[in-house]
């Protein structure tokens, strides 16, 4: 082993039992992917935004500001930019208001089986492709759709009417899609709250409303912050929902970008808009941080108690959560705690006259009704898709006029659908392997060796997933145009592999940090070489994390639409692409059958992950 170098980190090398230089060889694998196949496309995207569009033939290298000028001189584009931001904000705020009570209920519920069922439902719906979920809302909101039929049947509506495309239909769809992220962020934060604190507050004479305002809310502001920031970022980059549920008035930036690429073939302008989207995101994040810092001092009740992960800003995921918690300070701090506070005290004034038992039971009942309604909102749309997939009729009707599996037969016998399914599975499996190799090796090297820029590299490792997929898509498109990988499955595999590498990275990093090093020392003490130790001890103890990471990447790749669509250049079709295309022209119930197969696949894999990791959601 490292014989001549008995330096200060001799202990470290002795423990890892690997040669000094090995750490650089191993790191070079994930780093090469991240630098050459993640940073390079982003750099190229930036460069492309200054190139010249040549109508007809495409583009030529050069330098022009026309692409940016075109954007800012058009009132249409500037207005769409504002619509994009507004939609993201509205989505984040509505998600928070809907999500908090549900998350609170989930965290405090004392029936584990029920919590598991609800969590699995929420988490499974989280990963199902936006295409299917937007489709579900089309079915609900369409003229002669479920809502309209219900309205006519109950006499509320005089005649059938459609609730989409339109602004509020879109907001409902966006909230539906991003609410699970909010609920999970809040859930973990409320779950960490010590129940005794609430009892202490009540013991000191504070009623439920006061306890909530003075104890629960301030202590969960990190979750509020990270959830809100997460939903905001995700909504800002949303393409599928505005495209499928919005009118041309709600063409958000991602929709405009896609149009430039796929319809106009104007890559430089698409690149310029992508750069602008990144800038908008950064500006808003920066602004949110600024607002927090400025106003954090004068927010009643929100100061003083800091959250759980204030100290963990060294590693990659830590730095990320640090960022989120700071962002969150914003939201928690400013409007929302005040809104909650004033609503709460209004309620409390109103019910002050009634005796406390009645008051508690009124609050308790209305709370449960609210939670049930939100849960229904999350679960019902996919249930409806499953239900209508068994219709025997040529068109979607609700309720279905009978029971038939003809559309499943159609799905599994139509060569186009089968080809898409095979494409989807192949791409997802290969992308999962690639993601796991990049994320896993990066996690391992960063955990085992000291590098000068270790924490920076760690942050780098989680970066891909933070970039809106539409931007990843355009960046890879311009990159692959140069090396001839557009329109191939390999191209999509590489893009997905990089984009989802942070999931195995985070999961395996977490597994390594929880791994008791003494096991490895014990193995070496018993004569096991480093390789044998990794094979017989380290890997088996990490297996749940490694496999979960791979399955996560698999399920996300399987359900991904926009990256696959832009990189396919019409040549490769996956299931989400196929469904989306069909939605543009007609509504055969095959779509519902395909969606059901996909939902089932996703739920099975997510349940497997949960089993494997013994309650990873905790």
């Amino acid at each position, binding site marked *: *082993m490292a*014989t001549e170098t*008995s330096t*200060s*980190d*001799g*202990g470290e*090398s*002795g*423990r890892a*039992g690997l040669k000094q230089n090995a750490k650089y060889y191993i790191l070079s694998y994930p780093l090469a992917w991240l630098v050459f196949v993640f940073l390079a496309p982003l750099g190229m995207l930036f460069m492309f935004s200054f190139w010249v569009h040549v109508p007809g033939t495409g583009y030529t290298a050069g330098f022009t500001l026309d692409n940016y000028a075109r954007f800012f001189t058009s009132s249409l584009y500037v207005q769409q930019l504002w619509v994009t931001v507004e939609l993201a904000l509205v989505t984040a705020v509505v998600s928070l208001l809907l999500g908090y009570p549900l998350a609170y209920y989930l965290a405090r519920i004392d029936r584990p089986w029920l919590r598991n069922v609800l969590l699995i439902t929420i988490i499974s719906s989280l990963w199902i492709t936006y295409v299917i979920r937007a489709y579900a809302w089309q079915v609900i909101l369409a003229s002669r759709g479920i809502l309209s039929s219900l309205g006519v049947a109950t006499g509320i509506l005089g005649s059938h009417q459609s609730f989409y495309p339109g602004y509020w239909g879109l907001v409902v769809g966006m909230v539906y899609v991003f609410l699970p992220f909010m609920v999970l962020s809040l859930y973990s934060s409320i779950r960490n709250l010590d129940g005794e604190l609430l009892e202490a507050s009540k013991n000191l004479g504070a009623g439920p409303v006061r306890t909530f305002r003075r104890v629960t809310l301030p202590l969960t502001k990190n979750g509020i912050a990270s959830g809100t920031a997460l939903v905001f970022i995700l909504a800002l980059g949303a393409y599928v929902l505005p495209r499928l549920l919005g009118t041309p008035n709600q063409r958000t930036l991602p929709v405009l970008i896609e149009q430039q690429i796929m319809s106009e073939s104007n890559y430089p302008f698409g690149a310029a808009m992508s750069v602008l989207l990144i800038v908008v995101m950064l500006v808003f994040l920066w602004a949110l941080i600024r607002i927090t810092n400025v106003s954090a001092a004068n927010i009643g009740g929100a100061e003083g108690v800091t959250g759980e992960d204030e100290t963990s800003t060294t590693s990659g995921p830590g730095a990320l959560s640090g960022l989120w918690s700071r962002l969150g300070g914003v939201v928690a701090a400013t409007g929302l705690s005040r809104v909650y506070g004033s609503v709460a005290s209004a309620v409390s004034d109103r019910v002050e006259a009634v005796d406390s038992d009645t008051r508690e039971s009124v609050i308790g009942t209305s709370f449960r009704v609210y939670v049930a309604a939100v849960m229904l909102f999350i679960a019902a749309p996919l249930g409806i898709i499953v239900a209508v997939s068994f219709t025997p009729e040529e068109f979607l009707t609700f309720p279905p006029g009978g029971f038939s599996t003809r559309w499943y037969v159609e799905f599994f016998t139509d060569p186009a659908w089968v080809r898409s399914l095979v494409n989807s599975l192949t791409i997802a499996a290969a992308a999962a392997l690639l993601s796991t190799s990049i994320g896993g090796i990066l996690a391992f090297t960063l955990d085992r060796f000291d590098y000068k820029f270790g924490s920076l590299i760690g942050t780098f490792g989680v970066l891909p997933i933070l970039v809106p997929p539409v931007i990843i898509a355009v960046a890879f498109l311009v990159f692959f145009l140069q090396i001839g990988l557009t329109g191939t499955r390999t191209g999509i595999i590489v893009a997905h592999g990089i984009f989802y590498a942070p999931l195995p990275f985070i999961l395996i990093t977490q597994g390594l940090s929880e791994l*008791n090093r*003494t*096991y490895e*020392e*014990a*193995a*070496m*003490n*018993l*004569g*096991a*070489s*480093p390789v*044998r*130790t990794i094979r*017989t*001890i380290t890997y*088996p*103890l990490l297996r749940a994390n490694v496999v979960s990471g791979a399955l996560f990447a698999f399920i996300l790749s399987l359900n991904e639409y926009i990256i696959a669509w832009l990189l396919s250049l019409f040549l490769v079709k996956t299931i989400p692409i196929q469904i989306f295309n069909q939605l543009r022209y007609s509504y055969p119930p095959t779509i519902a059958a395909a969606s059901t197969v996909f939902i089932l696949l996703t739920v099975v894999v997510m349940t497997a992950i949960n089993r494997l990791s013994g309650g990873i959601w905790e």
Partner: protein
Amino acid sequence: MSGISLQDISKRYSGSVLAVDDIDLEIESGEFVTLVGPSGCGKTTTLRTIAGFEKPTAGTVHIGGKDVTDAPPYERNTGMVFQDFALFPHLTVHENVAYGMEADGGYTDEEIDARVAEMLELVELPGTGDRKPDQLSGGQQQRIALARALAPKPDALLLDEPLASLDKKLREQMQVELRRIQQEVGITTVFVTHNQEEALTMSDRLAVMNEGKFEQVGPPGDVYNEPETRFVADFIGTANIFDGDVTQTEDGYVSVDCGDVEVESTATRETAVGDDVSVVARPERFNFQSSTDDDRDENVFTGEVTFRRHLGSSVEYRIETAEGREVVVVRPSGLDEHEPGEQVTVSVDADNCRVVST
């Protein structure tokens, strides 16, 4: 069987902390040596240096006459029992115990099975091979950890506070058990603990460590009865310690002025008038006196009993003198009982006192 030899071992961590400061230790084949000291004294670092988990900044480690200073842990043939046992949670008891022999590669399956059975017999847990570690109690896990360490026939057994996570009763039971097994196998053993009682009851020799150095190395009786430093006297057992200046030396006796009191002691070390020294007297060397007859060779203290507790076979008293000094006295149970609040006089013979370095 083979001994362990540490020569001029120092370990400096990146920073500047000198965890181990130039220590030497010769451990004979089959000997049970305990490294004892407060946390942070360097005892665990020393053990980990023997195991190969730490590389010494200076010095050499020999196991069985072979220089292993640069050898990685897996080429040293030591068997270690860890504080939290470190039984592999994904492997059965059998697989845990077999692990070392499988890594060695030189055993057939039959030999491994036979050896595992033999080891489980040795630790009195036959038939537990199919269980997983989490199905065992703390004491059982401890025994399996020991069996696993001994199975590949190591040259030395290294024990890193293995009893610390057990409750008191089980710990005492395991002390006896561990010693029995060690003697049965006859293996050279290094045991690390911060518990001085454990160190006294188990070892052939103990090495008292403080700030990276050995304060004293010797058999338990010697270390307890003839401490050489104030630290050892204080750390091992209970001691009354009188710090002061030497005022007089004569006929093998020393007088020490401690401010409130003048203490006489046998001159257990070379001193000159004016030296800063400490005089040590163990509590059980004191007697109660009915009258204050002043003998030249006796140190006499008068004061009030402030605290009394029964220790079973003996009784401990704390007596506060008029000057505010507390003297601890331990007397056999059932003799001269005194009540808290009572004025008493106690004395200790100068021959029962020792002069040690401060």
